[in-house]
């Protein structure tokens, strides 16, 4: 048995090939291998590792399906310490971010979070990010691990005419996510964790300050799984103790450590884009269904504004959801056709898997606008066989509140 390399163009051998769906296409070579501050905890928990943007991160601990289901039914804990944390501080912080990013950040509330984009002048996506306002004049920008350098460079270059300081704190900040219906109860039961407020009253995309054993921690009600959950930012030296304390508190709630494999299927079911798959330098936000993230009502100029106003051409492909019957999943780079015998592809899958929650194949794909209407039947070339699929509204999965 060997992996089908056609399905995994970035892979060249079995151990890497089996996880290529989780890795961005711009992953750094393995020679620059980096390890999370929580690496030993993962080794102790029996994790299998994969390269993700130059980091050795857990891909699964025992079963990626069990980890996926745990997040949907109880809770999972993820190490996201590879992600990039960039602070933006100074009198012009808000105005600078309004110029550097697609959204309007100057008016968000203290401890509010906002999903945003770093665009290039042509309107393409350098990275998708989450921005937190941590103080009146301080923001935290959280970027993808694979885009750390690009994000820091873009923000630094755009900062020159503003009274603001852009600092890459990624090496000093660890990030732990607890996701799933039991996540709030687990945080409330975590020894040594105090929160400046009530988690029960914390809204989605809002954060609270807190402490863990005397050190600062930022607790945000955010995530990438489609479930209720929290993301905790903490200084690297305290991260392993916080991981252990969360795991201990989670034991009665069936909390399991969860790897990148389950994170990928969870975010796919939730219809959330992954940079390098759904998003790229040559993708306009409007194509990806992220037109609302680009604030054209903003009074001030921002990088990518004029290109965004013009928008993609009328025939530019758009991101859709695909659902199919059976068990054979279309995967990233598989082609999408109008009919079972159409000679020319009119779409391509960017992410796809057999949905663990729904039990049938799901995918996100860029297709010609004429194929994008919900209910349209298309065909996916699954290694030589065209399998019918139906254009479906995203997300595939929405939790019951």
């Amino acid at each position, binding site marked *: *048995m*060997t*992996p*089908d390399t056609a*399905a*995994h163009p970035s892979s060249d051998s*079995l*151990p890497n*090939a*089996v*996880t*290529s*769906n*989780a890795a961005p296409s711009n992953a750094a070579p393995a020679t620059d291998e980096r390890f999370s501050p929580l690496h030993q905890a993962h080794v102790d928990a029996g994790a*299998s590792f994969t390269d993700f943007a130059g980091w050795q991160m857990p*891909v*699964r601990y025992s*079963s*990626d*399906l*069990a980890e*996926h289901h745990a997040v949907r039914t109880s809770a999972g804990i993820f190490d996201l310490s590879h992600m990039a944390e960039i602070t933006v501080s100074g009198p012009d912080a808000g105005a600078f971010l309004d110029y550097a990013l697609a959204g309007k950040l100057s008016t968000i509330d203290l401890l509010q979070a906002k999903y945003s984009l770093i665009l290039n002048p042509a309107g393409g996506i350098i990275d998708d990010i989450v921005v937190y306002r941590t103080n009146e004049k301080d923001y935290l920008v959280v970027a993808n691990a694979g885009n750390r350098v690009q994000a820091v460079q873009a923000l630094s270059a755009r900062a020159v005419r503003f009274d603001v300081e852009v600092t890459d704190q990624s090496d000093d900040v660890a990030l732990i996510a607890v996701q799933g219906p039991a996540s709030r109860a687990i945080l409330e039961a975590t020894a040594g964790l105090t929160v400046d407020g009530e988690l029960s009253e914390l809204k989605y995309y809002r954060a609270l300050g807190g402490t863990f054993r005397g050190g600062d921690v930022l607790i945000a009600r955010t995530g990438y799984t489609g479930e209720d959950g929290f993301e905790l930012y903490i200084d690297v030296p305290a991260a392993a103790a916080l991981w252990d304390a969360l795991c201990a508190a989670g034991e009665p709630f069936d909390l399991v450590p969860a790897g990148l*494999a389950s994170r*990928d*299927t969870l975010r796919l079911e939730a219809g959330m884009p992954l940079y390098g798959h759904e998003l790229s330098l040559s993708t306009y936000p409007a194509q990806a269904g992220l037109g609302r993230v680009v604030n054209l009502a903003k009074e001030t100029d921002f990088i990518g504004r004029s290109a965004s106003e013009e928008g993609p051409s009328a025939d530019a492909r758009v991101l859709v959801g695909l659902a199919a019957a059976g*068990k*054979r*999943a279309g*995967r990233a780079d598989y082609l999408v056709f109008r009919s079972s015998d159409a000679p020319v592809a009119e779409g391509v899958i960017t992410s796809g*898997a*057999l949905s*663990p929650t729904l039990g049938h194949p799901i995918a996100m794909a860029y297709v010609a606008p004429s194929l994008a209407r919900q209910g349209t039947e298309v065909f996916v070339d699954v*290694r030589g066989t065209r399998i019918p699929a139906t254009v479906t509204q995203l997300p595939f999965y929405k939790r019951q509140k």
Partner: protein
Amino acid sequence: MADKTELLYTAEHEWVLVDGDTALVGITAYAADKLGDVVFVELPAVGSSVAAGTVVGEIESTKSVGELFAPVNGTVLETNDSVVASPELVNSDPFGAGWLLKVTFTELPTLLSYSEYSALVGE
């Protein structure tokens, strides 16, 4: 479950249990572990001819697709319906209930011994 040290192996991470002129074939625990949770298995039709080194089936996990190669020239005598119905058997018992197919052959090609295969996967 077969004694792993008695089995023969291929470089494609398959194991072969030879009994007279039949070969029982599955994938190794190493391969199953690298694939992750197997969710779909496609096997060749019983009675079909297979040629050594050619693709005769697929093993899909949530994350990846593995191809199943025929380790010998021969005819498919039997396939494992249980593993088609319950693909997780490939993970839970790769050397036993997770077997994939049984092939009759006339000539056995050169395959790897347990120690040779162990060296290949670094275990």
